[in-house]
């Protein structure tokens, strides 16, 4: 439960970063999807019911703060899907190399984007959406992939701190 809370707080923090500070980065309209990296991390290292709910909640939080009112649930769906796919993939992925984590996040970002676009197209008819979205999706996936090793490292450090804190409490 504590771990769930920790990841939830980290998720909120990452959403805050994505909605505010990361807009200052000089990389155009691209915002690195750090919450996606968190979902991948949860799917890989903490495949629990709490993590699944956490992924859903992170996605839903993004919907609450940024999705149009008639498309609320879109990110919740995408994040849950990513978590599920990573969970299945984690059985056959041996993650020791930061490059591998980047590749996993890159694929996860592409899956998430594809899910977003498909669901958007299903619920809202957007002509020519794919054409404009493709380049944007690739850039965003690359940005997330580049940052993945850093975020993974920070999350591990946070986990170690939490474990030490818990051990000291006991």
């Amino acid at each position: 439960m504590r771990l769930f809370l920790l990841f939830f707080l980290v998720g909120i923090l990452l959403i805050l970063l994505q909605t505010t500070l990361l807009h200052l980065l000089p990389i155009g309209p691209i915002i690195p999807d750090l919450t996606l990296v968190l979902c991948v991390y949860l799917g890989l290292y903490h495949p629990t019911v709490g993590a699944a709910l956490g992924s859903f909640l992170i996605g839903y939080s993004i919907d609450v703060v940024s999705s149009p009112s008639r498309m609320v649930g879109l990110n919740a769906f995408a994040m849950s899907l990513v978590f599920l796919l990573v969970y299945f993939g984690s059985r056959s992925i041996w993650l020791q190399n930061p490059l591998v984590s980047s590749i996993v996040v890159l694929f996860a970002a592409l899956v998430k984007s594809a899910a977003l676009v498909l669901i958007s197209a299903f619920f809202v008819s957007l002509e020519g959406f794919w054409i404009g979205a493709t380049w944007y999706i690739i850039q965003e996936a690359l940005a997330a992939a580049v940052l993945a090793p850093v975020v993974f490292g920070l999350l591990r450090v946070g986990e170690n701190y939490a474990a030490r804190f818990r051990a000291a409490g006991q």
Partner: protein
Amino acid sequence: MLAFVRKNQVPLSSCFCLLLSIYILTAAARGQLKNEPLGALLMWIMRPLQIASESAVNWVKNFRDNYDTLAGFKSENERLRKRIQTLEVERQRLLEAEATNRQLKALLDFRTRLPAGAITASIIANSANSWFQSCMIDKGSSDGVRKGMAVVTPLGVVGQIVGVTPHAAKVLLLTDPNSGIDVLVQRTRSRGIVSGSLDSGTILKYVKRSEDIQEGDRLITSGIDGIFPKGMMVGTVIKVRKQHIGLFQFIEVLPAVQTARIENVLIVAGDGAGKS
């Protein structure tokens, strides 16, 4: 059944989340998703954090904007500083030109009051040591300068020509111990010789003890030496000392022309110039 659920609780919960998402999406697309508590709760949690975060971002933005502005000011400042330097150089050049112009004009005016044939010259060098008070001018024999000619300025006597080459001449200044200019005390018409001295500056020599000489008396050329035109300012008496013994008074003189500051002079042929 329970064992299956327990074994696959993670994928099942994920699937539940997916279905829940689709349900929410459908409800939202139909416009039925109003006043849902989870969204409100998340908004309630996020709002203060977002306000704080946005404040931090605004601070960073302002800081960056201010930095950019300051950087702009810096480059502007450097540009203006260079411009000021350029203008300062230009100003100095113009001031110098104006000063030279003023001097030359004064010299020209003065020239009209002198005997015909006065030659304008510029000082090009000063004495190489402190033993001799002399300078070089840029006019020589090819310009009509001859040994013994007087060198003057509108302010007064400078010295006399003691050496001539075709394109330059050497001037012995009145402050040199070897110089001697026959002068009159303007007030009393007493005569004497103004000369330089190594220890006491410029002095007036050979003035009898009985002569009434006072501080502030003006000394002018007598014209008797045949070198300097009569009536030119030589200096002012600044100190008079009558010793207990001796025939003459000891008189210190402040030269009318500060020889160290002059740049342009006039060379004048006195009555006896070139004869010696």
